[in-house]
């Protein structure tokens, strides 16, 4: 797979902090795949920022030796957009969970898609809130209250009688918003995941990777074994540039297709637009505060 000689090895991205995740957490697989992918892309850790929100997976920046930004819950995308717009020379990677990205931060997602900043977003989707110890998340798939056979108040702490809401479909939403690169990975398929992250990092624009990353402690339903049985590789003859086909694929919710679901390489990035305007105005020569004041004289 990786044929080019990397100046930075995966271990060069590793910080001296030990991950705080539970044994068996899917996020270990994502961390290791990310380090491999950065190594393949030969990202200089000093020129790379990993941005996160709040949650189990959002602690990832601390385990990497790159620059990191661990902000507030749900706002990782706008923080990253600010960083990348101010510093287009940096590699900007965003990490977080399904609660951080699709619930509290869900309002930022479509707008990030509209802007299409050149950033890569890894959502470690464990279909639960892990850091607060096991509540439903927007991607949780548990029985609806009205469909539950019996009242079972043990397993899900804030929905003891079943869920009142339907889960969202992040892939279908992302296609609707025209996120310019959409892929789904699985932390228990590390090589496949590494390839997807590399493709995402190389994509010019906003890349979303929804990564099934099971929580062994608080999600006894979507376990690694369950997900192994409920995922399949997108066939080789699939054309991810066909948006209608991508929609059709995303609506298959019985099993999760793994691979690149959709890509739109023609969409200009926010950085392209900003740079274009700056360059065009620069042709008029530099502006000055004195020149601004002159308009009011």
């Amino acid at each position, binding site marked *: 797979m990786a044929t080019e000689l990397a100046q930075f090895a995966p271990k060069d991205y590793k910080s001296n902090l030990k991950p705080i995740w539970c044994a068996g957490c899917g996020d270990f697989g994502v961390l290791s795949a990310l380090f491999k992918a950065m190594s393949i892309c030969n990202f200089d850790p000093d020129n790379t920022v990993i941005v996160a929100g709040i949650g189990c997976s959002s602690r990832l920046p601390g385990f990497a030796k790159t620059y990191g930004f661990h*902000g507030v819950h749900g706002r990782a995308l706008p923080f990253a957009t600010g960083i990348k717009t101010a510093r287009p020379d940096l590699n900007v990677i965003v990490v977080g969970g399904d609660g951080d990205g699709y619930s509290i931060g869900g309002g930022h997602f479509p707008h990030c898609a509209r802007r299409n900043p050149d950033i890569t977003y890894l959502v470690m989707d464990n279909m639960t809130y892990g850091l607060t110890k096991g509540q439903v998340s927007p991607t949780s798939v548990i029985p609806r209250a009205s469909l539950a056979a019996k009242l079972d108040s043990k397993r899900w702490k804030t929905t003891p009688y079943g869920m009142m809401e339907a889960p969202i479909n992040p892939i279908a939403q992302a296609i609707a918003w025209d996120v310019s690169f959409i892929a789904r990975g699985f932390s228990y398929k590390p090589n496949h995941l590494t390839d997807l992250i590399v493709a995402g990092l190389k994509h010019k624009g906003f890349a979303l990777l929804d990564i099934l990353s099971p929580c062994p402690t608080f999600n006894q339903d979507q376990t690694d074994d369950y997900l192994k049985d409920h995922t399949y590789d997108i066939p080789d003859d699939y054309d991810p540039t066909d948006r209608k086909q991508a929609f059709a694929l995303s609506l298959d919710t019985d099993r999760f297709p793994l691979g690149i679901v959709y890509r739109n390489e023609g969409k200009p990035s926010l950085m392209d637009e900003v740079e274009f305007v700056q360059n065009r105005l620069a042709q008029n020569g530099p502006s000055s505060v004195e020149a601004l004041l002159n308009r009011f004289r």
Partner: protein
Amino acid sequence: MLTSQETDVVIRLVGESGEGTVSLGDLTVQMLVAMGLEIYTYQTFPAEIKGGTVMYQIRAKSSAILSQGDYADIVVALNAEGFGLYGAGLREDGILLYDSDSYTPEAVPGRTDYALPMSTFARAAKDAVRHDVEPEQLKRLPAPKNIVGLGALLSLLNAPMQPAEEHIRTLFGRKGDTIVRMNLDALHSGAEHIAEQIGSRALPRIHAIERKGDRVTVNGNQMLAMGAIAGGLRFYAGYPITPATEIMEFLAKELPAFGGALIQAEDEIAALAMAIGASFGGKKAMTATSGPGFSLMVEEINLAGQAEIPVVVVDVQRGGASTGMPTKTSQGDLNLALYGVHNEQARIVLAASSVEDCFWTAVEAFNLAEAYQCPVILLSDQSVATLKCTIPPPDPSRVRTIDRLTPSASDQPYSRYEKTESGISPMSVPGMPNCSYVSTGIEHDEAGDPGYTPEIASTMKSKRFRKLETLREERSRDYVRLWGEPGCADVGIIAFGSTEGVLREATERARAQGLKVAHLHLRMLNPLPAKQVEEFAARCKTILVPELNYTGQLAGWLRVNTDIDFHSYCKDEGIPFIPNEIYEQIVALSSRRPALI
């Protein structure tokens, strides 16, 4: 007292939004500026999307102006509703110029009324050229009602018509001679109609003067935006909100030419997040908002304090709680600026006190954010943001900018949050080799690694707050302004923000009557220059703390931080103070009686 050749006139224009009140105001301002006069306007806009009553007050003076003035000498009322809402601002012996096509007010003893059939004259001017323009153009051609009003107003003021005529030629020249002629006709018809009515009646006169020095005619939002650029702003993100939007609109146009970038965010939370991200990346960044948006930013202001990221947050305060009164003014967000976090957090709070001060406070906001690596909240308000006035332009060559302290080669191994005496640690920016760290809101040790031990908790919190003590000690003196009596005073005024001009005018008026009045104006609210406040209070017998909110937020803050006693004077009506009401407060508190001149 004014000499015969001096001018100090207050003109108040009221009318339906969209029927030319604002353009009549703008034209009048241009004419008065052309006469060499100083201008200070005060506007209230309707919150309605279309329609509603606009009030546009213009004070014209032959010397520097401190406030919008007290009562209007002339009210120009384009409709009955506007006169009903804002006519009370006319002095008892004032002049009312009204659109007699729209309504006829009841005569009031003492007041002089001038009737002007504005629509009739405007239509007549349009009719006169109907054969000289294409039928299609005629249909779209608005009748020049505001020009009729301008002619009448200039006539009332005994102002020369020539600058207005020249202005009309410039403004409409592109549209052809016929349109110029129509507008000149309108101007003259308004002027002549009023001239006929004046007769021997006394009028407030204005006199053209030769202007001493360079002037710009600007409002507070514009000055703040220019000050921000001068202070080094290179990234802005914001969400539209009245009355702060104009800052974003100005910067959207200008910032890219300075190599900067601007993003219209999906909400205020995203806006501040983007600004903080950009600053983490090494660019000087800002957002501007008003009350509701400021409320949404509170969590991230806390983060910027905790992670020690420089950022400037402008709050153009507006009237009322909740949605409140978006187009009115207030100083009601002081508490939110000072206290608005969970737990406690170090932040700097500045307040702009005038249109000119908006420029310099913006520069200072960036310098302090960079020097102390924390959020700086800059309080402006609707009145200073939207009022247009003539001021000497700030000299950009006088601007000194400060950049954050960055690590040097010897700072290895690098610790982002290194404990220092001042509390300030070198801040690396991404790209600097061997200086990576995680910028985090989680409690952390000197290296930035998460840590919850009692030692880390106390060390790091005191480090962040120590920066404010450093600032208080080093710079407090620079953030107070002293006016009025230099020595012992009977009445001392302590205030902040956009009330400075009104308070100075009231102070000067009282001093001219022999009262001993001093005024300390705070430009920085946190850290509070407590020593300067206490020294000031020590030389004043009585202290007055006037502010534009209901509960006395500055008063509360003074009680927390100082031992001084004072009288709190609060007004929370969506409008600024007028000099006279402050003057009356001074007289009431003073042991001396004013010498009535």
